[in-house]
């Protein structure tokens, strides 16, 4: 079964598929506007920090700035938070990595620390690194100064009564469910190579401009389904090749198999009976 791209809320309405950047946006805004959230975050971080002295506190009314995708020559930080600056002192920085399903890149916690060291004394006086992820996420989280669970942040928003916070709680709940349904996606070099090879063969063998197909990308174990779409085809019509099983399907977005019978009749034994496995 393909992973559904959409989910339903309690009212039965469709909601957007959740991605890592949703968490970045939620945290960016909350750090920027709510000193209460910063206090909550510091408190939670201290609960499980390896070295609690690294989680430096600040005055309640200090300014807090959050920047998404802060990039230096040493790589990208999902969310950089600076707080506690005064007229005479540099701020303290939190370098946050958000994870929903993706595995760690090589040395990722170490590179966060290198970026922290790189800014120390110039952009911030002290820093700490933090992983925000599901409680069951990889133990590599130990290499961050602190780990905050998605569940604790979800509970923070769920405890509020305003609609905006409730909406955020739902996004986080969806994120938690997504992790629990699918687990971590650890990049598999063999599968990544295979997908890259497949994409190159598509570029070489399929008529240019007539097809849309999966581009080369990082892949994980058993990431063996490949999708093809004619550029002239209506939305939702596609071919799926399941490389491991050798199965190939024409997918038509219809819940009613009746009209497809005409196709089966026209092509006789060439075409198997239609199924409604997922559409």
């Amino acid at each position, binding site marked *: 079964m393909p992973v559904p791209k959409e989910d339903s809320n309690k009212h039965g309405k469709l909601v957007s598929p959740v991605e890592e950047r949703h968490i970045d946006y939620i945290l960016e805004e909350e750090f920027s506007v709510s000193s209460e959230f910063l206090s909550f975050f510091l408190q939670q971080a201290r609960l499980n920090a390896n070295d609690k002295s690294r989680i430096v506190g600040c005055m309640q009314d200090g300014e807090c700035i959050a920047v998404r995708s802060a990039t230096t020559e040493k790589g990208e930080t999902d969310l950089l938070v600076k707080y506690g600056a005064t007229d005479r002192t540099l701020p303290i920085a939190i370098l946050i990595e958000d994870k929903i399903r993706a595995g760690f890149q090589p040395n990722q916690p170490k590179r966060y620390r290198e970026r922290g060291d790189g800014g120390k004394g110039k952009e911030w006086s002290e820093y700490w690194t933090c992983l925000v992820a599901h409680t069951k996420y990889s133990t590599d989280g130990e290499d961050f100064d602190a780990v905050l669970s998605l569940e604790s942040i979800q509970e923070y928003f769920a405890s509020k009564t305003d609609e905006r916070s409730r909406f955020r709680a739902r996004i986080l709940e969806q994120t938690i469910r997504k992790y629990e349904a699918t687990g971590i996606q650890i990049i*598999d*070099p*063999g*599968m990544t*190579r*295979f997908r890259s*090879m*497949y994409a190159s*063969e*598509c570029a070489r*063998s*399929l008529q240019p401009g*007539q097809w849309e197909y999966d581009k080369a990308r990082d892949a994980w174990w058993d990431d*063996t389904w490949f999708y*093809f779409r*004619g550029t*002239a*085809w*209506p939305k939702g*019509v596609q*071919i799926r*090749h399941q*490389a*491991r*099983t*050798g*199965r*190939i399907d*024409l997918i*038509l*977005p*219809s819940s009613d198999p009746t*009209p*497809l019978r*005409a*196709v089966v009749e*026209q*092509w006789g034994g*060439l*075409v198997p009976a239609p199924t409604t496995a997922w559409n």
Partner: protein
Amino acid sequence: MPKVADFSLDAQPPEFEQFFAAIEFLAGLYEKSSNLLPEALRIPDIQKALLTE
């Protein structure tokens, strides 16, 4: 369709031509039968004309 059993780094590439032959067969079948399907699943006539050119 042949199954791919080994996706490791040192695996031999599979017979991609067989994959593409099957994909193009299925695509041809859909394109030739599209007029039998409900409108939402049909290839628009103008696009079909381009395909047959």
